């Protein structure tokens, strides 16, 4: 991880130096640096189970995997959405800053660095998106940040400790839960949805990853009271998209993110799988308008969390955890929410499959960039590779039986599936009129409201920075260290 953090910082600085170059060199330079960013993420993923610690950071395999996948997705979005003039060179610098922030906050054991880098990630995302579509993101990010600062600072002051809590319950957990839910982007038609489908969406996987990274602070694996409403929200998003037949990105994103967050809330071991699935899904949705009319069945396959993608490993983990809790409960009342979760999970999976099939067979206007299509395929490959990856935290290591045999079975099934697509007779897909790729679908905000949001969110960030400074001073003066 130290190598990864250093490499991201260097890449960010290099992106800043691109500014003065001619347009064509800037564009080529940005793509080259983005490829290097992706490569450093792959290296982090492959070395995630080395396990080490550095300063106040501890690099658990599932955390490293989470950071690697989210960063890979973000750099892929930079490559796919950058134009021929390299006009958004700043996106490269901001993605590297956000990736560094995610890496530190996902690994830190102390409250102050986590707060500091949580705010830094918010700032990087907002700076990247403010000019175009930032009001929605600013609104939800400011709320999430306020909740996060209140919760974590309140706990630190109450306990007079800088140690990051784990499985926190009680009054300080509520604002933290609210912060995670808001940050993850599970509120439809606002928040994260505002930047999807645009170049600024490059920071979306990192924002989602950051929400997942801090769930262990408040979740000890038995948070059914949070998990069940989240799963219901996912089911609602699927149902809404199926019924209206007019999917929009901000609602579609709710489905995989809320479902994965629900699973992570009841099974801490699924953190890596759930976060990786959510990050890949959000990146895929953000890429959709750049790959309109192409790679549709791949898109559906990943969004539905079908075998052998990483999402399926998370579904299996969630089903196993809820089933075990349901049969282990001592009374009908105690078992009821776990039963409901276990029953709702196949419904969400099947609803997702139906929705994914409608996405997969959409007749769309072919308005795509080759980079967008290639990036979609790369995400599909990443979803399968992480799903089949051996090692802890990610892949089919837990839940789907004997790992080696399962990996072989899934690998053979993929090969047969690919061969079948070449050999099988063509089916007749029902024809519909061509459609445009989905829009973000966020609520329109009046200019006055956007200005107000800008001021409030700036105030929240200033306040947040002040609180972190105050907490640092308090800690040093009282002697938390």
């Amino acid at each position, binding site marked *: 991880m130290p190598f990864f953090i250093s490499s991201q910082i260097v890449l960010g600085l290099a992106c800043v130096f691109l500014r003065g170059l001619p347009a064509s060199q800037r564009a080529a330079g940005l793509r080259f640096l983005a490829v290097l960013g992706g490569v450093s993420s792959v290296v982090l993923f492959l070395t995630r189970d080395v396990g080490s610690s550095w300063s106040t950071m501890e690099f658990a395999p599932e955390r490293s995997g989470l950071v690697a996948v989210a960063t890979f997705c973000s750099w892929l979005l930079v490559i796919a959405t950058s134009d021929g003039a390299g006009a958004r060179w700043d996106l490269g610098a901001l993605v590297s800053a956000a990736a560094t922030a995610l890496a530190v906050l996902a690994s830190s054991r102390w409250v102050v660095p986590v707060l500091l880098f949580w705010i830094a990630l918010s700032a990087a995302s907002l700076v990247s998106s403010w000019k175009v579509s930032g009001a929605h993101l600013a609104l939800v990010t400011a709320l999430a940040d306020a909740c996060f600062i209140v919760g974590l600072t309140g706990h630190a002051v109450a306990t007079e400790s800088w140690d990051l809590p784990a499985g926190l319950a009680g009054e300080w957990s509520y604002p933290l839960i609210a912060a995670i839910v808001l940050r993850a982007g599970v509120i439809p038609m606002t928040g994260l949805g505002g930047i999807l489908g645009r170049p600024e969406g490059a920071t979306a996987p990192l924002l989602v990853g950051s929400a997942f990274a801090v769930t262990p602070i408040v979740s000890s694996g038995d948070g059914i009271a949070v998990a069940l409403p989240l799963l219901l929200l996912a089911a609602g998003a699927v149902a809404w998209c199926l019924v209206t037949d007019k999917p929009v990105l901000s609602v579609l994103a709710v489905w995989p993110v809320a479902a994965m967050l629900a699973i992570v809330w009841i099974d801490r071991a699924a953190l890596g799988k759930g976060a990786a699935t959510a990050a890949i899904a959000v990146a895929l949705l953000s890429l959709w308008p750049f790959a309109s009319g192409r790679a549709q069945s791949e898109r559906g396959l990943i969004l539905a969390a079908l075998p052998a993608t990483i999402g399926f490993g998370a579904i299996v983990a969630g089903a196993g955890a809820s089933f075990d809790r349901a049969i282990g409960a001592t009374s009908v009342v105690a078992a009821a929410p776990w039963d409901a979760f276990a029953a709702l999970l196949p419904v969400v999976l099947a609803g997702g*499959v139906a929705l994914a099939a409608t996405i997969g067979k959409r007749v769309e206007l072919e308005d795509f960039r080759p980079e967008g299509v290639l990036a979609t395929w790369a995400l599909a490959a990443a979803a399968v590779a992480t799903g089949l990856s051996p090692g802890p935290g990610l892949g089919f290591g837990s*839940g789907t039986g004997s790992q080696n045999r399962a990996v072989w079975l899934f690998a053979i099934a993929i090969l047969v*599936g690919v061969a079948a697509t070449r050999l099988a007779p063509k089916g007749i897909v029902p024809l519909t009129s061509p459609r445009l790729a989905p829009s973000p679908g966020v609520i329109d905000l009046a200019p006055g409201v956007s200005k107000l949001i800008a001021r409030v969110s700036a105030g929240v960030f200033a306040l947040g920075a002040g609180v972190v400074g105050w907490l640092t001073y308090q800690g040093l003066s009282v002697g938390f260290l």
Partner: protein
Amino acid sequence: MIALGYLLGFVEGPVVAVVGGLALITYGRGLLLERLPTAISGAAVAIIGGALGVGALRWEALDLGELRGVQAVLGPTLLVGPTQVAIAAGIAAGAAFLALVVWLCAPWPTTRAGYLWTGVEAGLAALAVVTVFFDPAESGLGGSGAGSVTAQLLRWAATVALVASAAGALAWLLSKRRALWRVIPVAAAGAGVVAGAALLTSAT
């Protein structure tokens, strides 16, 4: 292949993996269907998954190996008491069968290869239902004589073939009707799964 790998015991794992395999098939079938039949097909696979879950809940085990093992010792899920539990399992099995009928009826094949492939899919889904609810291996295959093993395997294959053909025949009849007609058996099967789960939970 994924579902078959787990059902035939090449890979040990949970029944959820089989549901995942069925979901993958549903995705492929859904690509050939319009919106309403796709949604109905999705509902059907959710009900099959839920029903298999009720069967697993009866033995308090998600693992396919455990489900086979416990039935090898005590008998098929459907036939082992107490009565209320057996009834609950029976209702869930019936719901799974009904959902299987609906799942199979769209898209109904039109070519010889299509019939063959639908037969394979029907057999696979039937195998999943039979494995959870009516695994006829009385004492496992190990240690038995050749005749006994052959008889058990034949009985097993016959049960799967019977369920698959019955579901296929009903699916053929249902495929002649409009898509809306399929909502009725799906709703009935959904109610069956909920009833089975409630009955099972109250009994244990």
